[in-house]
């Protein structure tokens, strides 16, 4: 059995069995019945130090949103637009003409953060945002960078940030998975981005497709609830008979529990996933019902409901931000679709006093080049881009790090993916160097042998 070097509560087998019978149905047994079953791997765990963020909502913007047109104001880029520049790295072209941003930037909030006019609603929450303008990653290719953003590694299959989070913290929701991804990507590594790799499989994400999707197999199309209960009673009767005969069988107890939990989930999960349970004013605030904002608005509202219900790590997905062409139309469409819902989410979390311990994060796998790929497009840029975080112990109204005068390479407060991961884990009260798992003879961690916590952004 793989050893957990992370802190786990010390339970006797008797305690564990008691816990299982009282309904905490998730139980991953790494091995067969004969082994000493470990304590419930999803039970909430004590952390390395005092908690700030208790849960994460990751707003994943697929395709590499242009930081130069959203959160990274470069007046020199505007001034020198049209000039030829040699730029790029060994993986891409050698540059082109500097392309000015078609949009105006203005200062927002108490600290005058520069945010583009594409995001008027989000700009109102400038005092909550920590803009990380000095992000950088290793490669300007979607599959590599998307996977690296999620797992810390682009060459090998590694557990995702969400899986490490669950491993480190457990979950607070009995009826729901601890790690949920809405509208997951099927490309760019697909399931690998949300997987558990060598961590116990129980820590992988539960995917929900689209904004109106459901957890797989949540509904029975054949039987009424009463008839299904009759069937389940027969199943459990058979299981109980076997348990009596075997006398001791922790596996069997957890099978019995898991079926009861599944039965409960059949009504609870659709209820949770039903945004129409919210008042019309709340739905309107998120943009639900309006064509452009309906889809992502639903995702954001679902995220808030899931966060309330105790889900530990929620990832939303919106794309495509890969504007090699059609920058103007594409960015306008993307921002229109997401600006209002995200702002509503922040406001809603704040209103429910949840923002202080919910870490909200926004970003894509890389940014875009200051030089144009045409006169209406930008190429990939891994050397410098922007992500932002809010809530969960992060300083608001802050700008951390910066890129060069044209917004190409991060020059200051540089934050690599590993640094971001280290910081996220730190905000979740986990020491990225101590959150390890022993696999194949050695200890592994999300940040490998890298990563520095950006202490300056901690509130």
């Amino acid at each position, binding site marked *: 059995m793989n050893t957990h070097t992370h802190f786990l509560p010390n339970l006797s087998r008797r305690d564990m069995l008691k816990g299982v019978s009282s309904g905490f149905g998730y139980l991953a047994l790494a091995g067969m019945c004969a082994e000493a079953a470990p304590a419930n791997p999803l039970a909430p765990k004590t952390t390395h130090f005092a908690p700030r963020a208790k849960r994460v909502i990751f707003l994943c913007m697929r395709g590499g949103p242009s930081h130069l047109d959203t959160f990274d104001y470069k007046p020199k880029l505007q001034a020198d637009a049209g000039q030829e520049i040699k730029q790029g790295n060994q993986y891409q072209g050698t540059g082109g003409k500097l392309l000015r941003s078609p949009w105006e930037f203005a200062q927002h909030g108490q600290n005058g953060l520069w945010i583009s006019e594409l995001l008027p609603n989000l700009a109102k929450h400038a005092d909550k945002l920590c803009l990380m303008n000095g992000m950088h990653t290793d490669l300007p290719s979607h599959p590599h960078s998307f996977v690296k953003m999620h797992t810390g590694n682009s060459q090998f299959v590694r557990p995702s940030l969400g899986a490490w989070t669950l491993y480190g913290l457990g979950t607070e929701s009995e009826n729901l998975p601890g790690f949920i991804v809405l509208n997951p990507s099927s490309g760019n590594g697909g399931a690998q981005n949300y997987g558990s790799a060598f961590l116990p499989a129980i820590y992988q994400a539960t995917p929900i497709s689209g904004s109106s999707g459901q957890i*797989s*197999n949540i509904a029975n199309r054949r039987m009424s609830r009463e008839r299904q209960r009759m069937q389940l009673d*027969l199943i459990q009767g*058979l299981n109980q008979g076997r348990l009596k005969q*075997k006398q001791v069988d922790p596996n069997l107890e957890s099978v019995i529990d898991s079926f009861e939990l599944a039965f409960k989930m059949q009504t609870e999960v659709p209820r949770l996933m039903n945004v129409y349970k919210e008042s019309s004013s709340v739905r309107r605030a998120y943009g639900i019902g309006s064509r452009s904002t309906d889809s992502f608005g639903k995702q954001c509202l679902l995220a808030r409901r899931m966060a309330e219900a105790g889900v530990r790590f929620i990832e939303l997905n919106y794309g495509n931000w890969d504007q090699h062409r059609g920058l103007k139309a594409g960015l306008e469409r993307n921002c229109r679709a997401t600006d209002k819902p995200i702002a509503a989410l922040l406001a809603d979390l704040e209103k429910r006093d949840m923002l202080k311990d919910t870490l909200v994060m926004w970003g894509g796998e890389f940014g875009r080049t200051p030089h144009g790929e045409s006169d209406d497009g930008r190429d990939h840029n891994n050397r410098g881009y922007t992500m932002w975080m809010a809530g969960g112990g992060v300083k608001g109204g802050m700008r951390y790090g910066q890129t060069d005068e044209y917004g190409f390479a991060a020059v200051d407060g540089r934050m690599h993916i590993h640094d971001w991961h280290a910081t996220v884990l730190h905000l979740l009260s986990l020491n990225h160097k101590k959150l390890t798992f022993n696999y194949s003879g050695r200890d592994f961690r999300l940040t490998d042998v890298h990563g520095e916590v950006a202490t300056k952004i901690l509130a």
Partner: protein
Amino acid sequence: MSFSRSSSGRLQLADWLVAPDNPLTSRVMVNRIWHHLLGQGLLKNMDNFGSTGGDPSHPELLDHLALRFTKNGWSVKGMVREIVLSRTYQLASDYDSANYNADPDNRYLWRRSTRRLDAESIRDSMLSVSGLLKRERPRGSAVSNAGDRRVSSRSQTLRATTDHRSVFLPIVRDMISEPLRLFDYAEPSMVTGKRDVTTVPAQALYLMNDSFVTRVADAMARRVIAEQASPDERIKLAYQLVYARPPKADELEKTQLFLNKYIAGTDDNSQRSQYYRDNAMSAFCQALLCSAEFRYLD
């Protein structure tokens, strides 16, 4: 060991792996064979035979088997035969309180540990009891037919499955089909000496609600109805198919009660009532397929 700069070293690596004075390869292999047959290795750790990997429960036995393995020409079949002919392999899983108190984890193999079937066996067994299993090899391969394209553009054809054995299902990284993935199929991108065995509600939801399972249950119901005339004989046949034993008296009673309750109030000729009368047997068959005994081997 040395080799010239112009060669790759692979031959030398191969020689070292099977060198007579290298105990590692044969011990690891024998441990894995033992694990596959008995549900747990002599050394629980499949991958780490170093000093941090723990101790084997029966070190002399491990060495003995390793030596016999190499002496027998590294024959996997030969080693399998030896192990399954042993007394240890043939032990039952019956509980014994004295033994249990002395060795609750069955480290010293006083009985056969109950184990859950792996994902492929669960699916194959469902197809088998329902009579749906196609035993011949399928023609062609969905993966090779998909050609050289992005996986997502072909996901429909790659997900489509026939009723052939699970060993013939297309295996595409990051797109493992649900019945395999849910029951802990090994992640194709990872080295996996030992699969997880999870028990989660997602499995229960699948067994209770998925259309593959209901199709299997329907076919199984048709089979028992066709092969036996009386309700009780049909029930007994169903237990025999799924559990390889007849029902106990209380199980038979529970089943009869269930069937009666299920069709209670369906005497009218409404479509709904007809529907429930028609699939009562299937609902019962599905219950057997959902129960633990079907997928846990004693």
